[in-house]
């Protein structure tokens, strides 16, 4: 993680306003909260604002603070706390590449290299045509299809370098790409080559519904046993001072 600051003033827009539809949605969202607790809507509104503009700008923060009757600094705190809020402009397609361990082990470096080659050498920088920007993110929870990336609200999984390059070029050319696994053959997260378990057709025709009744008997744990004192917390580790200058 790194310092999160507002974008420099020269690239901040002059003003921000929700679109008519979003403004209506915002009012409905604010009304969900009890009187005096309107500030609870701050994350929802910032998120909606980001969906509209792509990133969270200084005027947006002040505009939302006024809508919720919050001090500006409180909204700034929220916007800088959550890494999901982009504080700088992004491309039409924001490519979020997972580089956490499982994806990295499965080759996310190649995906990153593809982004560097086809979008911009630096992350969080908009490509020359304005259509793309990319960033590394922490685990997006699709490790079983690693490596993966997210564009908009869709996951693109089972990637490698060439696939990623092709996807970016397709998007650039205006072609649609299909979300999900990109390695042709996999539908969701089943093993490559097809399912190995839960293959019995009777599982799917309704014939076994209600048959699993019998509980395996558990050995009873007596109350005295469960509540027996264990070693006192203070006995676990005695603090031992090392002499001054001792190796760490």
């Amino acid at each position, binding site marked *: *993680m*790194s*310092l*999160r*600051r507002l974008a420099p003033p020269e690239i901040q827009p002059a003003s921000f306003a929700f679109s008519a539809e979003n403004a209506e949605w915002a009012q409905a969202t604010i009304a969900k909260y009890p009187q005096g607790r309107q500030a609870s809507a701050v994350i929802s509104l910032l998120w909606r604002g980001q969906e509209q503009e792509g990133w969270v700008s200084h005027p947006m923060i002040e505009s939302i603070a006024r809508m919720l009757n919050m*001090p*500006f*600094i*409180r909204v*700034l*705190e929220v916007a*800088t*706390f959550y890494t999901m809020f982009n504080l700088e402009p992004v491309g039409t397609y924001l490519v979020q590449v997972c580089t956490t361990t499982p994806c990295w082990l499965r080759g996310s470096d190649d995906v990153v290299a593809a982004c560097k080659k086809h979008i911009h050498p630096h992350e969080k920088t908009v490509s020359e045509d304005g259509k793309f920007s990319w960033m590394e993110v922490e685990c997006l929870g699709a490790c079983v299809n690693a490596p993966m990336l997210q564009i908009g609200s869709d996951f693109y999984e089972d990637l490698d370098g060439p696939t990623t390059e092709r996807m970016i070029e397709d998007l650039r050319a205006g072609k649609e790409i299909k979300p999900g696994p990109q390695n042709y053959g996999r539908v969701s997260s089943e093993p490559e080559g097809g399912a190995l378990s839960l293959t019995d057709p009777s599982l799917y025709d309704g014939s076994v519904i209600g048959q699993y009744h019998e509980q395996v008997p558990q050995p009873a744990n007596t109350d005295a046993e469960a*509540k027996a004192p264990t070693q*006192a*917390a*203070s006995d676990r*580790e*005695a*603090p031992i*001072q*090392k*002499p*001054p*200058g*001792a190796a*760490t």
Partner: protein
Amino acid sequence: MALRKLIVDGKEIEAEETITLLQACEQAGAEIPRFCFHERLSVAGNCRMCLVEWVGAPKPQASCALQVKDIFPNKDGTPAKINTASPYALKARQGVMEFLLINHPLDCPICDQGGECDLQDQAMGYGRAAFHRFNENKRAVEDKYMGPLVATIMTRCIACTRCVRFATEVAGVPDLGATGRGEDVEITSYLEKAFASELSGNVVDLCPVGALTSKPYAFNARPWELKKTESVDVMDAQGVNIRVDTRGPQVMRVLPRLNEDVNEEWISDKARHACDGLMRQRLDRPYVRVNGKLKPATWNEAFAVIAAKVRETTPAKMAAIVGDLAAAEEIKALKDLMGALRVTNLDCRQDGAKIAGGPRQTYLFNSTIAGVEAADAILLVGTNPRWDAPVLNARIRKTWLAGGVKVANLGPAVELTYPALQLGTDIAMLEQIADGSHDFAKVLGDAKRPMIVLGSGALTRSDGAAILKLAAKIASDTGMIGPAGSHADGGWNGFNILHTAASRVAALDLGFLPGVSSDGSGGRDVAGIVDGAQKGEIDFIYLLGADEFDVAHLGRAFVVYQGSHGDAGAHHADVILPGAAYTEKDGLYVNFEGRVQRGRRATFPPGEAKEDWAILRALSEALGVKLPYDDRAALLKALETDVTHFATLNDAPVHADTSAATWGGIGEAGPLDTAPVTAAITDYYLTNPIARASETMAKCSQELVHGATKMAAE
């Protein structure tokens, strides 16, 4: 109040359920280290330094974030055992300290907090011995701008968020916040604007490390080389308790002193930072005007010039005005001197407030400052407490936070830091409240303990007496004059005058007001004196530190100025007698509650300047009307004989007079002026000669009042 038994360090105690475990442990005599916890702020629980062992609990417990009511007894019914000094608790705290010090720079030798730093002190107790096991780079944080008073060295910040909570909760100016997360948390003001509160200096006291330090005091002194003197502030009429830290002849800084009844532990920025004005523009020797130019003179020469002038004139053509910073001693001495000369043109109301003396309760803040917390409806008339008495304003905000006191403001709309019904600037609104036709009259009537606060903005108007009359009527009609006694004993008096001059109540107590001369004609007030001087009817004026009225238009009158600073009064004086500032004399001050407090001498007056009462005593001898006291003890005795309550220090008067006659006799009925109500103070940072001489206050005024007028008037 429900009590719960605990065994703290083997000692069984009963603690109230509402307090935190940290406070309970302190009641049991244990010392708990802490950084983020502060009695007057909400609990954050983020520094983890206050960890204790709750025997049986799986982990050490943060005692500040644990309420006594959450500590359940052991299964066998015996009280829960808390160990604050066991090896387990100690080890936990050592771990916390190690984490804190990972990113804290080792710059104590160049840090202003050194010597009075919580982290430094607690590292002595909980730091690991002289070894460390962190060889990586330390975090560095960019310094932030927080205005002309607070210097920041943010690398030292341990993110306790005390300053953020103070700004949000006590000051009510939510300008500070913590942005980012984890290691990257940074305390900052919004877009690095100045922290626009009159109480901003208090964050420096609250900061447990050297991240926020005082900008004017930066690199000036070490705490152990300062002499500490407990005194009372005179920048406003609240009489906040201060500690004056001096080195040699110089006041290095002013800090707050704890007094629950007056200022809790806060002081305003003016009280704290105007002290550099004590070294500038000082009058350090007598001057006499010769051929239109002020020439240095000796005391005897100056006295001789005055005596000659007094011999030439008659008592009816003489006048004396007491300034805003005078202590009771010199007011008494000046009154006795003028009395001996049979002068009746006396006044202490430089601003022209229409307060006529009379029973004490008619010009005091009767609810008392602590009593504000009991109020449930407040009507402010012609006052901006945020500027008139910032610490009182924090008390009103505290009351609002605790129970939502209803506040209405009749006067210029200002951001008071709590919601207030803005009634506009038309004083006729007061009539509507008095006859019950306004909605807020009902709020006041329904309230158990309603208050009205009259400020200088109302009392200095030409119709000030009529406003007083209406206010007294509102007070009687809405039950503000409740049973006798202090609010703690069930009594209540909601009629309040909010003075802004530190000397005012003492001067009113001593009756420094236009008297009745031997021929039966009444003495002149300040406006009358100025008018008389222009017409030539007044030709001798004695100013005791009086600079806040129309000094430039005293015609050809002979002006004697006795005071500490070369301000407006001294510029127009014919004789200047150098006096002592409030830190340079022992003196009694009476705050707007009527509480008599003692200020103590921290340094000596500069050059040939003397304590003010002594100057008057010496002058009286030169004038041939020797005052009957030779030392301060005799003067105090005379003072106590004259006004008995000067013998009782530090107590606010208890409300006793509920008679209708007292309240019916206030003010004079009359037509109201149509002019809008204005603020009495136009620039909070420059209200008296000391503040005007202060460079720090000038910077504050420039940035916070003139740089952003919107902020103050918003």
